[in-house]
């Protein structure tokens, strides 16, 4: 991969490595919030990112859930998009050729309703040499017959992880659901089944009611909460998981600035993702990277890896 030239500001090294995937800096964008990267190309230079994760991809095309699919909540939002996507074959033939030569890491978020579907998607993606890692969504709370079951039990998480492990030769990231009693136990199960890294958190299950219409705001009644509102929950979970596993942890959930990203790294994250905050400021990622470099200078940190899990 050509994407290893580190971001250096003065003497600070921001480059990190997640289980074989080398990144210029710890900044990724979260699946489902960044399209295929192209949607943000007018606002930022995508090559300044450590990488970006394209939207949840399934074996077959999916139309997703009916409208309304989102509701704003205090410092956050609920979504019930329901994995609308055109399927992995469309990604491979139409999208991948357009973005593959970018000098950054392009990750695909893989979703499925059955283990065979996850495996089939991973096998197809394994043929693309510019995809250094996949992130397996075992936690999307929107799809009734979908990922929820895998992500909420240790057995389910282990089963899907070990099946994909056989089909995917490069970095395998398992994305965890926060809607569980002990996220550290699920993380350990994924680690034991061959995951190279875990990312967390996916959205928290939530609900909002339109009191004038006396109806749920979302067509699906419940949906996934994201944005600044979830950040303290996410920091806590990253801290717990980082203590429980040896593989690198990728932290996300409400990150809206460089300050927030540093908070996650101190709590144990090797890399971070920004999701919903991209909607509010489409340049938030590159601003956060700059802020992180300045923070390192102010704190006399010469290598950002030194602060990971300091807490």
């Amino acid at each position, binding site marked *: 991969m050509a994407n290893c030239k580190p971001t250096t500001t003065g003497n600070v090294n921001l480059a990190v490595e997640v289980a074989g995937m080398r990144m210029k800096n710890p900044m990724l964008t979260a699946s489902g919030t960044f*399209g295929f990267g192209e949607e943000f190309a*007018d606002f930022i230079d995508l090559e300044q990112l450590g990488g970006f994760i394209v939207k949840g991809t399934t074996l077959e095309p999916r*139309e997703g859930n009916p409208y*309304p*699919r989102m509701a704003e909540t*205090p410092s956050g*939002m609920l979504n019930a998009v329901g994995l609308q996507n055109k399927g992995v074959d469309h990604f491979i033939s139409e999208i991948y050729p357009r973005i593959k030569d970018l000098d950054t890491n392009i990750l695909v978020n893989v979703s499925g309703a059955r283990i065979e579907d996850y495996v089939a998607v991973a096998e197809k993606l394994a043929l693309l040499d510019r995809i250094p890692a996949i992130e397996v969504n075992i936690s999307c709370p929107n799809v009734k017959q979908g990922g929820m079951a895998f992500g909420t039990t240790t057995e389910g998480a282990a089963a899907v992880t070990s099946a994909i492990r056989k089909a995917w030769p490069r970095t395998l990231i398992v994305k965890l659901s926060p809607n569980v009693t002990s996220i550290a136990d699920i993380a350990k199960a994924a680690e034991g089944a061959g995951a190279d890294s875990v990312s967390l958190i996916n959205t928290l299950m939530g609900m909002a009611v339109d009191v004038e219409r006396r109806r749920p705001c979302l067509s699906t009644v419940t949906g996934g909460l994201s944005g600044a509102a979830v950040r303290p929950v996410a920091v806590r979970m990253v801290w717990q998981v980082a203590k429980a596993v040896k593989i690198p942890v990728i932290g996300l959930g409400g990150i809206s600035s460089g300050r927030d990203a540093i908070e996650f790294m101190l709590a144990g994250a090797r890399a971070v993702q920004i999701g919903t905050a991209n*909607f509010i400021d*489409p340049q938030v990622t590159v601003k956060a990277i700059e802020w992180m470099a300045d923070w390192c200078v102010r704190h006399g940190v010469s290598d950002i890896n030194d602060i990971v899990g300091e807490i």
Partner: protein
Amino acid sequence: MGKKQIFDAKITANHALSERYSMLTLQLPESVGEMKVLPGQFVEIRVTDSPSTYLRRPISICDYDNMTRVMTLLIRRAGEGTCHLCDLPEGSAVDIVGPLGNGFSIPPEGSSALLAGGGIGVAPLMLLGKRMKEAGVKPTFLLGARTASEILLLEEFSSIGDVAISTDDGSAGEKGYAADNSALSKHYDIVCTCGPKPMMVGIARNARRNGSPCEVSLENLMACGLGACLCCVEPTLKGNLRACVEGPVFNTDMLLWDL
């Protein structure tokens, strides 16, 4: 489509047009350059200082002058975010992303066009009417409102084309819904409409009956406005399309509405 930008614009005037509507005049910075704006496009505005407005608010571009970089926005007090915008003092800066979305079609010179707006839906029709006039199309405006005092920008619309009016209480123009106005009883080369959904459905039905092509501007709830989140989708013959990229303007032949 032109490049999307993010910039701070300065409010140079804020006029209350009625109790519920305000018109903001914004000076855009030099950095936006020759920004290409299509009639029907919108901007996403960040509303700060208000705890319940986390996401940006989509607002149609009412008018834009490329030479002076002056933009006007028409805003209806719907909730906290829009009230905050209506109350911003002159001189304040607003954080804007845009222009976003597609635009209405401009028919060939000499065509007939009906531009129907209900309530706040008249906003995009100002720039649309001006661009049509420049293209040699004389538009007829159909303005719908609850009552005479809420007919917005009547003078400005009258200087561009003919104006037909409907009010719910009959205090101006014809009494009743815009969708029932007699201006809709003939064929046009294009009918463009923006407003509450029941009104747009009524207008689209009439247009279809008279063999007129019809374009509607949708106000689906949006999160990103950039095509990334898939929250704003509208079911169409081509599947779920994003109102913020493939829309907000759709030809009604594409939609699954019951016309």
